[in-house]
C-alpha cells in the first residue's frame, strides 16, 4: 500500500484508542448491570439513545452542553431507577432470560416513544463551540472533541473506580455481586443496592449517548448498532468485569482502526472475528468469571 508512513500508523493507532474510549463507555454500563445483577440489559442501546435525545431536548431549551453532561445522566438514570423498581424487580430469581426478554421489549417501546415524540428524522447536534476544530497531536490533526471524549471516559472510569473501591456503598455493591445471600443475612437491603446499580448503569449509558451525539447526530435507531458493539466488548472482556470491559473496549477500537487501514470493508466484521477468536481461546472472556450465566 502506497503512502504507509510511520506517522499514519501512529495516527491510526491513536484513532483506534479514541474509538476504543467510546466503546468502553458503551460497554461499562452494560457490564456493571450484568456483573452486579446478572441482568442482560437489552435496553442499553435505548437508554443510550435516550441520553442523546435528553441532551438534545435540554440544549434546545437553552441549557448548555456542560450542564447537560450533569443533568442527562441524572434524568435518564432516574428513568432507569423507575424501570428497575417497576419492571425488573419482580423478575429477580426467575432466570436470566426473563429480564432479557423484558428489556428487549422495553427497548422497542422506548424507541417508538421517541419516534412519536421527536419524529423519525434525526437531528444534528453541533459540537460545543469550545471543542470545535482539530488540533495537531504530533503525528497529524485530530478532532479536539474526540480528545475530550477520551478524557471524559477516563474521568468517568476513575470516578466509578473510586465509588466502587473506596466508598462503603461500593463495598456493599461488590459484596452483593459476590454473594447476595450473605449480604442479605448481614442485614443489608440488597434490593436498594440493585436499584442504585441499575440507575448507575443506565445513567452511564445516557452519558455515552450524549457524548456520541456531536459525533454522529441523533436518530431514534442510534442505539441498535451500539448495543451489538457493547455486547461484543462485554463478552470479549468477560461478562461482568469492569477491567475487562475497559481493556476489551480499547482492543476492539484498535483492531477496528488497524483493519480499516488495510481492508476497510472488513472493519465491521473484524469486531466479530475478534470476539470469535477470544471465545475460542477463552470462553469466559479476558476477566470473566465462569458460571455467571448459569
Amino acid at each position, binding site marked *: 500500500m502506497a503512502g504507509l508512513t510511520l506517522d499514519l500508523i501512529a495516527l491510526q493507532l491513536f*484513532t483506534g484508542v479514541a474509538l476504543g474510549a467510546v466503546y468502553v463507555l458503551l460497554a461499562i454500563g452494560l457490564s456493571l448491570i450484568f456483573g452486579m445483577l446478572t441482568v442482560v440489559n437489552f435496553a442499553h442501546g435505548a437508554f443510550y439513545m435516550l441520553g442523546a435525545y435528553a441532551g438534545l431536548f435540554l440544549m434546545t431549551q437553552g441549557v448548555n452542553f456542560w450542564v447537560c453532561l450533569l443533568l442527562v445522566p441524572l434524568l435518564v438514570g432516574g428513568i432507569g431507577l423507575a424501570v428497575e423498581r417497576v419492571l425488573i424487580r419482580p423478575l429477580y430469581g426467575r432466570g436470566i432470560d426473563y429480564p432479557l426478554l423484558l428489556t428487549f421489549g422495553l427497548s422497542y417501546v422506548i424507541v417508538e416513544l421517541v419516534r412519536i415524540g421527536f419524529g423519525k428524522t434525526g437531528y*444534528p447536534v453541533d459540537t460545543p463551540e469550545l471543542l470545535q476544530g482539530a488540533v495537531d497531536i504530533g503525528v497529524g490533526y485530530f478532532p479536539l472533541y474526540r480528545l475530550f471524549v477520551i478524557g471524559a471516559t477516563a474521568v468517568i472510569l476513575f470516578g466509578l473506580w473510586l465509588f466502587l473501591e473506596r466508598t462503603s456503598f461500593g463495598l456493599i455493591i461488590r459484596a452483593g455481586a459476590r454473594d447476595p445471600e450473605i449480604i442479605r443475612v448481614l442485614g443489608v437491603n440488597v434490593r436498594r443496592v440493585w436499584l442504585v446499580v441499575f440507575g448507575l448503569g443506565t445513567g452511564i449509558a445516557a452519558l455515552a449517548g450524549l457524548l456520541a451525539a456531536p459525533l454522529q447526530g441523533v436518530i431514534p435507531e442510534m442505539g441498535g448498532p451500539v448495543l451489538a458493539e457493547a455486547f461484543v466488548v462485554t463478552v470479549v472482556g468477560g461478562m461482568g468485569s469492569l477491567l475487562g470491559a475497559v481493556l476489551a473496549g480499547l482492543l476492539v477500537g484498535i483492531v477496528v482502526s488497524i483493519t480499516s487501514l488495510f481492508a476497510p470493508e472488513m*472493519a465491521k466484521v473484524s469486531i466479530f472475528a475478534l470476539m470469535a477468536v477470544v471465545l475460542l481461546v477463552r470462553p469466559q472472556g479476558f476477566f470473566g468469571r465462569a458460571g455467571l450465566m448459569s
Partner: protein
Amino acid sequence: MSRKPKQPGISRRGLIGAAGAGAVLAVSPFRINLARAQEAPIRIGFPVPLTGPYGTEAQDQVNCAQLAIAEFNAGGGLNGRKAELVVRDDKLNPGEGATRALELIENEKVNFIVGSLSASVQLAVNNVTKERGIIYNSISQSDAINEAADFSKFTFHEAMTPHLTAGAVGRYVFPKFGKKVAFLTADYAYGHEMVRGFKKAGEAFGIEPLEDIRHPLATTDFSTLLPRIQAMKPDVLIISNFGRDQQIALKQATDFGLKKSIQIVAPILLYTGRQAAGAQAFQGVIGGTSYYWGVGDQVASAKALNEAFGKLYANKYPSDYGAMGYAGVRTLLEASKAAGSVETDKVIAAMEALKYDYYKGPQYYRKCDHQSVQSVFIIQSKAQGQRNPSDVFEVISTEAPNEANLRTCDELGHKA
C-alpha cells in the same frame, strides 16, 4: 383483461388464470359490474420504504404523488375517470418489495406501479411488473434497470441514473478543484455505480483517481478511515453514500478538518439529509440533485410545484425524491390522458411520445431504455445567508438535458 403477457403466445399460468377468471365471471354476479369497470378509478400502486432509514424521503414521495393524483382528479381525470394511489411499505427490502408489487397487481388490481427508493428494491419490483406486463415507473436511482438484462418495454425510469448524476457533478468539479481524487464509498450497488460514473466522466479531464475506500452500509464511525484519506492528500474527496451514512461521514470529515485542504463532493446531496445533519456538517459540500425547491427561481414548473405542494402541506417544500414521486405518477396519468385509455400498450406509446415539463424543465423518455432525459442541478450547501430554514442549498450550475450524458443504447445492450 387488456394486459398483454410479455412474450407472444400465452403462458400456461396465464391461460389457467384467464380460464379461471372467465369461469368466475361467467357464474358470478360480478359480471354485471363489467360494464361499469371503465368508470372504476385508475389505480396506481406505490410501494416505498415507509419504515426504515429512508422513511422521511418515502413519506415525502407519497405526499408528492398524492398531489399529482389530486391535480389529475381536479382537472377532470381521464374523461371523468378519477385516479387513486395505493400505498404500500416495501421496508427497503427487495423481497418485501416484490411481494407488495405482486399483491398490488393481484389483489388491488392496480393499473400501474410507481415507486421504490433503492436500487435493489426497484429491480425486484421491476422483475414482477415485467413478468405481469404492468407498467412500472421507477423513481429511484439505478444504472442496472436500463440495461437490456433488466429492462422491458413496461419499464420506465423517471429518476436519474448514477452514471448521469456522478457524471454531471464530476464535469462541474474536476476542472475547478483539481485532478487528485479520492473516494469514500458505501460498499453496495449505489456506491459502486456512482464511483464508476465519476471515473468515466473524469477520463476527459485526466483525473488521477487515488484509492477508493469502501465502508459497509450503516457505518456510525468513519474516524478510522479519515487519517488515511488525509495522508493521500487529494484535491477532491468524493463521498458516495446515502442517508445517515452520508450525514455522519460529512460530520466527521468536518471534525477531522478535511475541508481545510480538500473539496468534499457527494453525487447526491439530500434535502432531508441536510436538514437532519445541520449546516456545520454540510457546509461547502458540492453535489448533484434531481430537484431542489430553489430551482423555482429559474424554472416555472418548479415554482408551480412548490406552490401547489405548499398549499397542500402547510408551507413545506417538496424534497428531491419527493418531487420524483410527483413526476413518476403525473407522467403516467398524463400519458393515459393522451392515450385516452389505460391500456398498457397505448400508454407505453403515449409515454414514449411524451415531451413534458412538470417540475424541473423539459424532459422526455428515451426510446431505447425509457430513461427520462433530464437536467441535473449542481448544488452547494449554504452556511449563511439563508432566506428561511428550508433555504439550505445554492444552485451553482445546471446541466441541461442531453442524451450524450447517458450511456448509449449500445452500451446498455439494446439492439437498434
